[in-house]
């Protein structure tokens, strides 16, 4: 009985020690798994949103401005498309959204400091992109069958940084996920 009791007491101590030794890394791993999943999830969503945005722009190119067509779009409208398809993507965290056109060696771009700015009509939201204004003459910003690109950086706040030794004061770390999509102008 005594030995049993001693053994039992020893096992109790072991469990506590084991939990301490195993529990912390386990929690870390568990949270890491969640966080990496969340990062991938956010990255995929942001990439998907940008891809949808560029696809939308690709069918609203130069030909949209040539009479009688009047389907030209603005940077703001493309931004709305990105926001619509980015479920869970915080517009204020999608930074440096660049709307790029032109040859690789002479590119030009409109840049929203963040998507929210362009959603609310700020920045270059009013600029016609990728084609010119409706009723404009034959030549606009981007030509038929030329590539257009939307590039952005998604700002992630990750809880993993909480576990990083020496990070004081304790706060969620941020890092940037670059997303980009290119398509030829279809129309």
């Amino acid at each position, binding site marked *: 009985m005594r030995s049993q009791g001693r053994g039992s007491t020893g096992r109790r101590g072991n469990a506590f020690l084991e939990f301490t030794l195993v529990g912390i890394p386990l929690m870390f791993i568990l949270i890491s798994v969640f966080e990496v999943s969340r990062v991938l999830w956010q990255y995929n969503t942001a990439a998907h949103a940008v891809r949808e945005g560029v696809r939308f722009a690709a*069918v609203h190119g130069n030909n949209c401005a040539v009479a009688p*067509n009047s389907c030209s779009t603005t940077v703001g409208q493309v931004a709305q498309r990105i926001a619509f398809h980015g479920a869970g993507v915080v517009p204020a965290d999608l930074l440096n959204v660049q709307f790029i056109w032109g040859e690789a060696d002479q590119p030009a771009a409109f840049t929203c400091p963040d998507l929210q700015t362009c959603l609310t009509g700020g920045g270059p939201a009013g600029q016609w992109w990728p084609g010119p204004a409706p009723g404009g003459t034959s030549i606009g910003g981007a030509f038929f069958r*030329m590539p257009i690109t939307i590039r952005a950086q998604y700002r992630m706040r990750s809880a993993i940084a909480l576990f990083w030794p020496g990070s004081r004061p304790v706060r969620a770390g941020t890092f940037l996920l670059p997303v980009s999509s290119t398509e030829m102008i279809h129309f």
Partner: protein
Amino acid sequence: MGGNRRRRGQALVMVTLALFAMLGLMGLLVDFGWAFFVEKMSQNAADAAALAAVQAALQAAGSLAGTSCSGGVVVCAPTPISCASATGNLAAGCQYALRNGFDWTQPDTTVTVQASDRLTPPTVAGCNPLTYHPPTAPCVDTYYWVTVRVARQVPQLFSAIRGNRTGLVSSRATAAVAQSTTVGSLIILNRDNDPWIGSTGTVLDNTGNAVVRAPGGITIASGDTVDAGHLQGNSHAIAAFTWIRAGGNVRLQGNATWTAAPVNQNTSSSIPSDTNPYNSPFVDPFYGKGQPPLDTAELGALPGIAVPNGDLTTAICPGGICPPGVYYATEIPRGCSVNCVPQPSGGPIKIWQGNFQFQASNFNTGNFVFFGGLSIGQAQVHFSPGRYVLAGVNRTYTEYVFETTNQSLITGGSTAAGTHDTGRLFILTDEQYAFDQLAAARSKVAGQLPDLVFGKAKLIAGNSAQSSITLQGLNRLSSELPLALHEFSPVLFWQDQRNSNYRYNSDGTYGCADFNAACPQSTADGRGNPNPEFWMQATQFLNIWGATYQPRGAWMQLQGGNLQTGPIQVVTGAVRLQGGSDLTLTGVETPIVDFVASLVE
């Protein structure tokens, strides 16, 4: 011990509970991830299917006019139908959905197609300016469109808890026969080896003090390594851009400048090369379209109108109104002294004085054929909407199939934006035109026409409003314009492709497989002896809205001392500028376009 026993199993309960939540979350992630993946796949499938269906339709139809639902060439489906019952070009499109992994015979997958032409509902007539657009792509003017919807039921792990075992993922894409803009307002087609009056290979030759401005851009198809473009003296070229085919250079002498600096194209992957001549900026924008068709039925109904000595008078045009008809000059044969009957001479129809209007009730009945050409002197002439065929010259009389002097007051249409009528098309040709479309008109001539050959054209504007030229080309925004001519809008002057130093095939494609080779006319498909010059003396009283078209191998001479600005697109083989002409080619609202299959939504 008892407490110990109670604690035992608690972890199991907690882990079990936590497992439910964790597995649930995992299920949610898998559901979303899989749905995203399937959505991306379905969008690709819908895009490919819609585009393929329209491409197949365009290929089968061959022309815009063939894309009508009633034509029996393309398949229409006003309401969405399953791919299982699709036929023709729609079935062809469906194959692309299948190849992209969406098999509509599977119970979890549906693929539907919907298609219509320009005027059949559900095509919507709306927007300002008016467009005929698919319901899913507002304000995109189309001639035929296909919408493909691809949907698949995906299994649900998370939502299955609440009984939703499947979720629906779907995508939609619309493709259409829509217009695609041709690049450039000065389009120069000659290549390195095509002969013209200028130096071979130099296709934009500015020898005087002329300034040419092309805000819509210049494209030069010559790849001459020394001087595809040549400016000297105080001449200048000013354009938003100048594209020269790979290898080509410009030569600047004296004070000449060229802004923006020309750039070579065709090396870049984003500018299609000659491998697709239908989409190359250095190939005739009307490549493969043939020539603007005449309405042969209307031609057959025209009266033949004999014009004694070619002098147009009020005896022929009562009150100065000249009706549609086949006009030809007649003369008493030389040397005839008794019982002389006037015979067709092949001389030009001359309007050297007076006030005349070529008048028709609408564009389609406005068909005027002038055997021997048209010469306008100190007269007022108005051209109502229609086709004007200048059908060859008898070189005993003149070498010009169309000629004006600086005393003429010529009107027809409006050059101001938004006020255009259906427009007019002047066809500069010989007595046959493409596939001998003038046979019906020749049969209206009483007597034997002499052989009429190609002639030059000369358009000279005067120096006052009383001696000005205002002419407006074809306007595809007008509902009156026949569908067959939409592809040729906004052309005003069309020079026969056979009247050129370069050979075209009858379908409007280039005559030689090597596009860079000289390709002279052969007697088989040309009439030989071309006269491919267009002389334009521009002043500020030359107001043209539209495009002048000359085939590759022809050329334009521009001369003048005054500013001439206008919404003009010039397509020609080569250009020589002389004198102090200052020419500005601003953009046309409805520029030359190609009709292509394109995704529009």
